[in-house]
């Protein structure tokens, strides 16, 4: 068993004659916050789906939480959490009901459920809103609850697909506080974002261009290598070289 939580070796995925993911290799260590960047259509979503065991690679190998993404997809799903901007919570259920429902999916016992939901409500400072329907809450709260729910079963890795779209700078940073906390407890965080300052909060990032990983490393080192001040500049200079358009 390797020490990596996410490991991809020459991973390729084709759709017809279109190569969405082109021979990528990467390793992510336990407790690492890994930023997975790329322009729209660069192949991020496809790669993420392979890691989550939702899509089979055409060739190459991916291991997540010690399981093979191709043959042991079901085991992977027990070990990961997933949160995307699009699917988050059931709006008509209350905060508590959502937490119980999602925790129930992962087979937590009744007692654990109770403890967990109390703990989450307490940690997020939601005591006064725990019995409110999720629809009534501000977006920033929904995002934080989504994250709490995605990590309720203490997964080894949590995949976050553009988790912070549309919220104000303070709420965005509060969200990242939660990410830091989880990473500090040993959880690996694999995150995509369009906010380049968020990329700089990551331990390491990779930038995908045309299905392949163009660069990978610590944000500060990447900036230094490219002789620029911010990741945004690195990103723009790389993505400008992209040849393909559209998803």
């Amino acid at each position, binding site marked *: 068993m390797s020490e990596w939580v996410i490991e991809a070796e020459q991973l390729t995925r084709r759709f017809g004659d279109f190569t969405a993911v082109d021979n990528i290799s990467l390793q992510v260590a336990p407790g690492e916050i890994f930023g997975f960047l790329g322009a*729209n259509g660069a192949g991020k979503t496809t790669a993420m789906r392979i890691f989550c065991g939702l899509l089979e690679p055409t060739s190459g190998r991916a291991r997540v939480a010690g399981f093979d993404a191709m043959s042991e997809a079901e085991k992977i799903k027990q070990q990961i959490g997933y949160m995307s901007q699009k699917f988050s919570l059931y709006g008509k259920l209350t905060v508590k009901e959502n937490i119980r429902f999602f925790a129930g999916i992962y087979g937590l016992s009744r007692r654990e459920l109770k403890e967990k939901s109390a703990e989450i409500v307490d940690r997020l400072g939601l005591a006064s809103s725990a019995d409110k329907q999720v629809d009534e809450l501000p977006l920033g709260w929904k995002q934080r609850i989504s994250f709490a729910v995605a990590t309720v079963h203490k997964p080894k890795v949590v995949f976050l697909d553009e988790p912070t779209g549309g919220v104000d700078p303070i709420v965005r940073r509060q969200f990242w506080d939660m990410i830091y906390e989880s990473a500090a407890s040993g959880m690996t965080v694999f995150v995509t974002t*369009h906010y380049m300052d968020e*990329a700089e909060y990551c331990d390491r990032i990779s930038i995908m261009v045309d299905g392949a990983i163009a660069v990978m490393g610590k944000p500060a080192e990447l900036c230094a290598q490219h002789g620029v001040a911010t990741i945004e500049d690195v990103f723009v200079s790389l993505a400008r070289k992209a040849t393909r358009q559209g998803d």
Partner: protein
Amino acid sequence: MSATAQSDSAVRVEGLCKSYVKDGSPALSDLSFEVGKGELFGLIGPDGAGKTTLIRILTTLLLADRGTASVQGLDVVKDFRSIRRLVGYMPGRFSLYQDLSVAENLAFFATVFGTTVEANYHLVADIYQQLEPFRDRLAGKLSGGMKQKLALCCALIHAPSVLFLDEPTTGVDPVSRKDFWGMLGRLRDSGITILVSTPYMDEAARCDRIALLQHGKIIAMDSLAAMLASHATETFAVRGERPFAILQDLRAYPGTRYCFAFGQEHHLVLHHDAGGPAAASAYLRERGHGEVGIRRIEPNIEDVFIGLMHEQSKELRGQAASELGHE
């Protein structure tokens, strides 16, 4: 209404209020501002700040509860038909026909406005050239950035004098965003008034003037430069080996007013009597952080927003405090 007001403002909003019956909390409360002709005006704020409601009132799609608004001197309620003739509108959701091709979408919207693509091609040529290679591709199969460009073309094809764009860059990658703002800049230069909303604070730099919107109120409005200049708060950037630990320690530091992560650094605002950066630096060393760099920086737009929110939350401890979470 005076003739001068008509001639120099493209959009004029006075005391606008709107609340939705559902939850009763106001989407807009007593909003007033003006946008000059030929100005590129940014409405900046998070989801739920009231940006979409405001734009829909200005594009005559919604009626305000109170207050008045006019576009090019025309009242949004009385003269809604005339306004619909002169404005271009791009809603927040991708609002083209996914099952029509790029060229078919453009041609259709030209027809809707009683014109043809040929007649006004010069208006969109700059943008449309990038779409030309995909002219037969279905709009639904374009990438996010390309969709936005096509939607912009469709909103421009009838030569509107005022353009309303609701979050055109949300969910679009930084490169496409940069391109998109480049286009808006060139359109502004050609004389079109543009009112654009965005949740991305960094896009403020591209606007002539901006209004920061939060909870249906304008919390600040000015040019970016003036806004930054008037933000008199001393801000420090802190950089060190273990960023999260430093952040937590800084928040626990009694001299800290507030501290937030900004990329690889933290932006720190201290109490006046806290002994300045030297004391903070000493405190961090004490906590075992070793080499920590603290330097004074020019605040950016997010610093301004956070500062304003901090001021507000001091006034309204109740709800705002819980939103801020940390103090």
